[in-house]
């Protein structure tokens, strides 16, 4: 036996704690009930995978088991926050593609544009104008990182979204579709036009975009002063907050903007035939409070205004339109919100059958540049 000093208690303690941590971790997997979803991360969590020899042979069982082990780890939300704090403390300015900006702003990094997507989307928009026989006005909501340069971390590289949009404008030139420049929105966006913890524009930002759309449609917009503005929540933590785990950022506010004296406009959901007010009070209690506006994503819904101007607007849209549509609904008799991610019917036939008079596309510029728009037309033109 070689001589050595006795092991220090500290060295033993480290090994004992290591063994204990493994045992406790394993035990907690067994004891704690599996969570179905995470409110903080706003997603469904993986469950213990079904066992089959085929799944083992293909390796799917092991992959699914790893997802299960990650998603169901005891105190997951706390660990995610701790990791975000560590990233921040070591000076890094981003987590999972979200910049930690100045003044509590979280901002999505813009991805590089995949080849050909912009071209395809431009063709689709032009085809829609032709098939419907109506001009199509495209309001492409710029990503916050593109407009709020002063809120980005120092020197943070951002892809030039305006250059992509200029290309889109060029591709649409001469067709029935036209890209709106959203000058009012762009001029004011820096004065609080976006949520800080969410990728959407807020009620104020959507109002400026509404003014730009009104100008294109030949409608006189209401002045901001005409509205009654109420803050209905001070506790909104949006999707960027969830993604980045940036718990130190203060919450956003949710605002209810309404015209005093206006008769209530109702939202009719086509999927289940139910009617709802424009603002879903009950959704202030859920994690994604942005669904306060029109209740979140639906394939098709119609806003009906008995005091409207007789025109019927088709909003071909993603979630950026939810907060914007109520402003437009105060003018139009009907606003049809059609979400191409969920709506599987012919768009032109829908427009014809419902007597649509105006068409506006409201989508985030980054999806127009990066994701193929899903649109089916009955009349393929010419």
């Amino acid at each position: 036996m070689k001589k050595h000093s006795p092991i220090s208690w500290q060295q033993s303690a480290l090994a004992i704690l290591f063994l204990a941590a493994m045992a406790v971790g394993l035990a907690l997997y067994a004891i704690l009930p599996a969570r179905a979803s995470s409110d903080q991360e706003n997603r469904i969590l993986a469950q213990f995978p079904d066992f089959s020899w085929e799944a083992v042979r293909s390796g799917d069982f092991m992959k699914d088991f790893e997802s299960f082990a990650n998603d169901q780890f005891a105190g997951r939300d706390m660990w995610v926050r701790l990791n975000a704090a560590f990233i921040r403390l070591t000076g890094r300015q981003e987590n999972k593609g979200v910049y930690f900006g100045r003044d509590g702003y979280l901002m999505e990094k813009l991805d590089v544009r995949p080849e050909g997507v912009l071209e395809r989307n431009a063709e689709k928009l032009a085809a829609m104008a032709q098939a419907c026989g109506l001009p199509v006005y495209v309001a492409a909501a710029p990503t916050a990182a593109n407009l709020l340069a002063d809120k980005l971390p120092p020197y943070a590289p951002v892809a030039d979204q305006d250059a992509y949009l200029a290309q889109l404008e060029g591709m649409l030139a001469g067709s029935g579709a036209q890209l709106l420049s959203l000058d009012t929105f762009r001029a004011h966006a820096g004065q609080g036009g976006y949520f800080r913890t969410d990728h959407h524009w807020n009620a104020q930002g959507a109002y400026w975009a509404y003014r730009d759309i009104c100008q294109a449609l030949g409608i006189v917009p209401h002045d901001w002063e005409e509205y009654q503005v109420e803050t209905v929540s001070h506790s909104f933590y949006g999707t960027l907050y969830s993604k980045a785990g940036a718990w130190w950022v203060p919450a956003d506010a949710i605002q209810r903007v309404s015209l005093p004296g206006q008769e209530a406009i109702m939202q009719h959901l086509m999927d289940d035939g139910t009617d709802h007010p424009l603002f879903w009070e009950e959704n202030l209690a859920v994690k994604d409070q942005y669904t306060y506006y029109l209740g979140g994503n639906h394939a098709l819904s119609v806003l009906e205004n008995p005091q409207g101007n007789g025109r019927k607007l088709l909003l071909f849209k993603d979630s950026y339109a939810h907060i914007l549509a109520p402003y437009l609904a105060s003018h139009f008799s009907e606003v049809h919100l059609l979400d191409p991610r969920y709506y599987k019917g012919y768009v032109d036939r829908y427009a014809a059958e419902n007597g649509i008079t105006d068409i506006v596309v409201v989508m985030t510029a980054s999806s127009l540049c990066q994701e193929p728009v899903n649109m089916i037309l009955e009349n393929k033109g010419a």
Partner: protein
Amino acid sequence: MVFSSLPFLFFFLPAALGLYYLAPRSWRNGVLFLVSLVFYAWGEPVYVLLMLFSTVLDYTNGRLVQRYKDQGRLRAAKAAVAWAVVLNLGILGFFKYADLFIGTFNSLAGTAIPLLEIPLPIGISFYTFQTMSYTIDVYRGDARMQPNIISFGAYVAMFPQLIAGPIVRYQDVDQQMDHREMNWELFSQGVERFLTGMVKKVLLANGIGLLWDTVAAAPQLSMLSAWLGILAFGFQIYFDFSGYSDMAIGLGKMLGFRLPENFDHPYMSSSVAVFWRRWHMTLGTWFREYLYIPLGGNRRGKARTILNLAIVWMATGIWHGASWNFLLWGAWFGLLLILERFVWGKALERHPAWGHIYTLLAVAVSWVFFSFPSLPEMGRYLASMAGAGGLADNLGLYSLLSYGPMLAVMALAATPWLGQGLAALKARGAWGRTVVLGVYLAASVVVLASLVDASYNPFLYFRF
């Protein structure tokens, strides 16, 4: 399965350690073999059969070699060794390099032979080298034949070093396979070593890997971005690989094994020769013992030494992956080693500071060869490093601010000083040891947070 994952830490390891220590001593090699097969099958449910085949094959070859030697039939023994080497290289060649040769043949001869598209079995480059060492060691009398196939299987499949080394030559563990010391002191040292490796892999390597990925994907690079990128890659691969080796050595200790060291602060070297004595040391030893010296080493004159170095370093290069850029990478080091031996080695010894700078530059350039599969991509990157894309851009300035603190910590962690500091603290008495304990505990908690968040956890050795 990788060590830096929750299934390993909270399911596999407690089960493996529990079974291992509950089993009687004489069963422990069997338990180790079995759990190692499960460990391997987790990532390679089909190729585990290939590894078993390889195990049986080399076990049999070992017996053959020993029997011929005992009978005094040395030529037959030599033939058996040659047969074993050919078989092992054949397996490695087929599963790892078949498509490289077919693709190259196609482009040279203008043919269109379809690629086999066989997925690479994880760790095959490591375990075929280990099993080859066994038959050769037995032949040379450096190790005894292992009569028990379970013990031999435990050596081949031993999960701590199975996937990414260290490459354990049979003679390193010959005695330990059947007689090893297992005690609490060794176990607790193992835990500390394992956690050290975990911190290197998860907090340092994963933390900086994102910077390299961003730079490598950028269409245009300034000088600043290109240098930060290659610095990030150099740190990522070092902390990833040496962290993995630390974890393997730590796990080995927990099981009673003393596995060979694999890294010794390579970025502190003042020549490329010294760098390669400190970087992936077990691979260098393997090539020296089983290729360079059998070729005659440096004992057959200058011309033959140059040829031998060239052969060994091309082989080292292509071992790292089935792509010609790895051959270039190896050739680059071979060239520098030849030049150091015959031209400027003495000058480097006289000026170690300049030697250090020269070594770091040479290694940085080598990482460009290592990272990009094609010559035009390498050329563009090297041009950016030389300033062809301007001095600085937003990506570079942002990365410098965002990753500067991490890079500084990594530079410190690449020196021996951090380890020496912790050792000095421990030597100062009880409070110093308590501080070190606190550091390990805090770091482990952050490691766990990073693993649970699973933001970024690549594994660089799957193609080796």
